[in-house]
């Protein structure tokens, strides 16, 4: 099972990339009450029937691995959210795109730790393909009340190919500095 909120996010982001999205938006909003995540894409989308099956752990579209009958990304997230009495929604329109939202109560005992946001983002950015990923981070906690926005295209524009290890090391440093800056006033 996934250990951190970021693990669920990375898994679900891959769905957007595999759905052929050219534009993906990710929002992580953390405040004293809630950890909220929203993933929006303009990928192939799903019909109502497909939406129902997408949350079934024993269903996959069979395109990636023919003969397999599991698809655990969304079901894992839903299970964790339900355990922690959080909330989730999945809306989609065939041919237009999909929007996935989920949230955890910040203080609930079963809410997973946030995990490494900058590390998760690096992994999301380094997936193959020519897609835009816009990341918005909001944090309001303790004395911290800040936000930042990053775009994959801007970082690729500066560093070039993000599969090159040297570029990845620099991108990692860059992303880490954003997250450290935003959380520098957070009371621990």
């Amino acid at each position: 099972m996934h250990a951190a909120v970021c693990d669920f996010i990375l898994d679900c982001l891959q769905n957007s990339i595999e759905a052929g999205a050219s534009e993906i938006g990710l929002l992580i909003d953390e405040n004293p009450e809630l950890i909220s995540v929203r993933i929006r894409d303009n990928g192939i989308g799903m019909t109502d029937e497909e939406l129902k099956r997408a949350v079934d752990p024993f269903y996959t579209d069979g395109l990636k691995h023919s003969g397999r009958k599991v698809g655990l990304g969304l079901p894992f997230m839903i299970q964790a959210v339900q355990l922690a009495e959080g909330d989730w929604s999945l809306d989609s329109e065939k041919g237009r795109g999909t929007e996935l939202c989920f949230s955890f109560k910040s203080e609930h005992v079963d809410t997973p730790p946030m995990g490494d946001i900058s590390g998760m983002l690096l992994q999301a950015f380094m997936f193959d393909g020519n897609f835009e990923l816009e990341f918005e981070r909001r944090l309001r906690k303790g004395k911290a009340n800040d936000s930042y926005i990053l775009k994959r295209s801007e970082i690729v524009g500066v560093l070039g190919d993000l599969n090159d290890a040297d570029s990845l090391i620099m991108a990692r440093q860059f992303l880490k500095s954003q997250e450290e800056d935003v959380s520098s006033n957070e009371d621990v």
Partner: protein
Amino acid sequence: MAKMTLEDLRTLRESKKGELDKRDTEGKDIHIIIGMGTCGIAAGAKDSLDAFLDEIEKHKIDNVTVKQTGCMGLCYVEPTVEVKVPGMPDTIYGNVDAKTARDIVSEHIVNGKLVDKHIFDRPAKDIVKE
């Protein structure tokens, strides 16, 4: 660490680019491919990726390509990593935690020795198209 702007990142890249150009990159084309499906994520492949980057930086190895792929059908030995180094057999490693990732860089890539007890020769049957 102070918050970096895109301009800082560009300056950093320019300074590294000079360093990189000085290095001898001929004949080196190293590929590290990390399984990052649901199974890989659950098994902690992120820590392996971080360890690979740390160790590559430490050994100042250039011309390394790091990629992510989906499930290789070896979910029981995730995190799995495929390593391709010129002059070495393409190798799929399993159970690659952070320590093993560091061993792969310092042994397999730097010293040209396979890392025992973590070798899986190829993806599972239903993944390989023949």
